[in-house]
């Protein structure tokens, strides 16, 4: 359950991978411009679940703009961007950089990040 405080804006989005049936449902609680809390539910492979889990850790405390930048950074890394992969700010998310060598798995890693992007855009 999302731990939203009184007055938080709650944003949500879902993404599915129609090829493999993976699903991610993401909820964000925003205190003003800052992500207070993020939770996901869903089912899928180890990569999609690990990526979603890291996302919810990474996005906490970020402003919207920072969260959007993180989406771009992560997606770039998943597609093989060496600079993004070397960025210490990417922390444990760098463990997923290997998907770039597995084109069929990039979608698994980026599924939750697509949902984050949708959630951030949906409210505008």
């Amino acid at each position, binding site marked *: 359950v999302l731990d939203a405080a009184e007055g938080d804006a709650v944003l949500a989005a879902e993404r599915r991978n129609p090829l*493999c049936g993976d699903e991610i449902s993401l909820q964000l609680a925003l205190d003003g411009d800052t992500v207070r809390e993020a939770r996901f539910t869903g089912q899928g492979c180890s990569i999609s679940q690990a990526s979603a889990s890291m996302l919810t850790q990474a996005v906490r405390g970020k402003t919207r703009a920072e969260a959007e930048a993180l989406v771009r950074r992560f997606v770039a890394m998943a597609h093989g961007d060496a600079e993004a992969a070397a960025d210490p700010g990417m922390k444990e998310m760098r463990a*997923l950089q290997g998907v770039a060598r597995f084109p069929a798995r990039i979608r698994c890693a980026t599924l939750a990040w697509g949902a984050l992007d949708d959630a951030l855009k949906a409210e505008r």
Partner: protein
Amino acid sequence: VTSLLVDPAPPPAAPAGAPPAGALAARAEFPLLAADPALVYLDSAATAQKPRAVLDALRAFYETTNANPHRGAYRLSHAATEAYAAARARVARFCGLADADCLVFVRGTTEAMNLVAASWGRAHVGPGDEVVVTAMDHHASFVTWQQLARERGALFRVAELTADGRVDEDHLASLLSERTRVVAFPHVSNALGTVNPVARLAGLARGRSGGRALVVCDGAQGVPHMPVGFDALAAAGVDLYAFSGHKVGGPMGVGALLGRRAVLEAMPPWQFGGDMISRVGDHETTWNALPHKFEAGTPNVADAVGLAAAVEWLDALGTERVLAHERALVGRALEALGALPGLTLYGPPAELRSGVVSFSVEGVHPHDLATILDERGVCIRAGHHCAQPLMRRLGVPATARASFWAYSTPADVDALADGVRAAQRLFGVGG
């Protein structure tokens, strides 16, 4: 920071020289397989690798016979027309269809199902009618009929399966009545490999509906793996039967819809354009004869020629032998995988299947399993197999599926089982 994905392992050493033992068709006949001796291709239910004879036929058509058929008065166009007609006759003969004009070339099974729903369905299904499919239908059939039923205000009903993955015939019978307008079922389940008793199901549908239901059989997983005698099936009650060429070793983008003449004659065209017309007035048009009524626009002649080469090749090999070969491999796979801890195998016993083994590994998502197997050169399908209604009933979002064809070998099965064990070790499951 450690990677969640292991580094690619070197592929297992290829056996030197000779094609692998235990294949029905030599690997050397398939250029893609011959070029990569270490490749273990276990996704033939998705698409088959192509015999050299097919690739040669495609090339020969474009190099010697290419012209637009049914149009030009010149010899080359005539040759293309003849090649197209000969391809139709060859494929019809392979399918046990005596009247080749009752074979409509389409893009594949999916297009055939859409053709039937758009043509017969819109003309004959209305409010209060019922459309029946099975829980093992591929989305190409399931979704097409579901949407037709919604559009026409008809009731859409799904026949359930038995615990071992066969159509529950009692349940199917209970859904059928004189209100039933369409009954669709697959010849073989693409996700489970179950071979359905087509004649019996068709007879049930025809009988229970008082002959009012259109009986449509999705043969995508039937034609490549076993003898199909369409005229005999039609006598038992099948009205229409469809399959995809690329699963038979033919090119992608061609397939066939086979039908009883009376049914096809009564169906309105579904696409309009060149070739399918007889006479075009300012305000009305009459239609060309079968099969052209359903083939608007320049047909896919080259791929039809390629498909004819594929069935020629397969006929020489013998579809009876293909089925027996696949069943032996399924038996080996069920035994090898069944011996591993934490494996769930779906579907009926080997003697009720074609060459499909669907399974899940406790603690290893099918998608992860497929990647780990891929690192070892083993290609399997992981996912819902375009059968989400079936996956829901199995209680899983996805399964892993290995599927066989004439070139598959016992060694391929062993590579699969070894790979599954390796995946279990990597994930620390299975003891």
